[in-house]
């Protein structure tokens, strides 16, 4: 019978060619560190981090637009905490708040409808950052606003979808052997969503949960698939059946498609990816904070390797600024700012280990 010890032993003794496995999700990166998985498996199995943190891939002109709203009379910018320290061209939301800008934190966009109801003179602009996991909460918020006739809410969307980004990576990076697919994005889109990528690129796509056992099992599955690749094609496997259905959460997909439509969007470090963004449909333009065209980025110092880190071309510690001039207190790139950015996760864990 398969068990965790046997799995670890096989992964430790792996002797084949070097294999790169990309974990797409920042929460996977964090869990891999916390559980010390890298030290349990053969160094020939290289776990690399992907673009799986919505904050890290948001361009700086988006932050600037958020700041404009925070400074505007009768406007409040509402955001998840992760966004506070991300640098725009002229500072971050947390600096602006210190300087008297109106910035409030939210646990859920759904709270904002109540605030808006109580303060009809103020327009609440929600910083709508996220992947498919978060998109349904924004859709439910608009649904409630429409139903209740609340008109003083806007969403400044920077919503992104994961499949086009994976496709971009498959097109542009041929060294990646297989993918650990993001568990909670997959709850919404379903494991079947990876079928097209599988068909096109014939690489293993394995949906994984977040416990160390889940992640080890997914790595094991990918290694096994690649070892057998001569005899058979790769597959999409769902190893997180407790939460992820083949078809995903169809109610959530439906409400996303009701309020949002696809459009091109800018990913920091990757560039413009066609159809990878979600924008409010024209019928809901009254609720739109003006999200299109926010694709300018600050010039990061040339030594900052964020764009390589985001696609797994470099590990954070290969950046000359890592831990020295760039650290969570004074971050240069977005990967150091966010709690799920690869550089930030590496920094915190290396410090802990010292």
């Amino acid at each position, binding site marked *: *019978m*398969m*068990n*965790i010890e046997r*799995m670890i032993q096989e992964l430790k003794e792996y002797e084949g060619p070097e294999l790169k496995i990309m974990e797409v*999700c*920042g*929460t996977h990166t964090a869990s891999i560190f916390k559980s010390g998985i890298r030290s349990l498996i053969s160094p020939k199995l290289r776990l690399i981090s992907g673009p*799986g*943190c*919505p*904050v890290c891939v948001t361009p700086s002109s988006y932050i600037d637009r958020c700041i404009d709203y925070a400074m505007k009379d009768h406007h409040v910018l509402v955001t*998840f905490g*992760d966004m506070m320290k991300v640098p725009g061209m002229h500072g971050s939301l947390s600096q602006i708040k210190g300087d008297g800008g109106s910035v409030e934190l939210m*646990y*859920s*966009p*759904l*709270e904002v409808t109540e605030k808006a109801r109580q303060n009809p003179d103020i327009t609440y602009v929600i910083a709508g*950052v*996220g*992947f498919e*996991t*978060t998109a*349904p*909460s924004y859709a*439910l918020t608009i649904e409630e606003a429409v139903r209740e006739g609340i008109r003083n809410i806007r969403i400044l969307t920077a919503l992104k979808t994961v499949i086009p980004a994976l496709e971009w990576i498959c097109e542009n990076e041929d060294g990646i052997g297989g993918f650990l697919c*993001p568990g*909670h*994005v997959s*709850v*919404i889109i379903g494991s079947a969503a990876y079928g097209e990528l599988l068909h096109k690129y014939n690489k293993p796509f394995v949906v994984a*949960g*977040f*416990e160390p*056992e*889940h992640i080890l*099992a997914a790595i*094991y*599955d990918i290694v*096994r698939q690649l070892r057998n690749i001569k005899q058979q094609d790769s597959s999409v*496997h769902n*190893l997180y*059946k*407790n*939460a*992820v*259905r083949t078809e995903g*959460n169809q*109610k*959530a997909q439906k*409400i996303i498609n009701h309020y949002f439509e696809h459009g091109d969007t800018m990913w920091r470090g990757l560039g413009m990816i066609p159809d990878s963004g979600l924008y409010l449909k024209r019928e809901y333009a009254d609720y739109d904070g003006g999200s299109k065209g926010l694709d300018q980025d600050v010039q990061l110092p040339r030594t900052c390797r964020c764009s390589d880190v985001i696609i797994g071309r470099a590990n954070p510690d290969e950046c000359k600024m890592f831990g020295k001039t760039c650290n969570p207190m004074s971050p240069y790139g977005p990967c150091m700012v*966010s*709690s*799920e950015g690869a550089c930030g996760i590496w920094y915190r864990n290396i410090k802990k280990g010292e």
Partner: protein
Amino acid sequence: MCIAIPGKIVSLDYPKAKADFNGNLVDVNVGLVDTKLGDYVLVHAGCAIEVMAKDKAMELIELFQELEDIT
């Protein structure tokens, strides 16, 4: 930021519910899942995105069974 956390539904007035996360009661919108009292739901940004099918121990047993079948 895509992390979703399981909480137990302790009161339900569809689509509003309260879920218990280790003793903390939190408002959750359950409009996108079919759930009932006592279920564990995965919650992200105030919204239940799925009902957890089984408890953790059962899940891992099945996970290993599945690997056995795959390999």
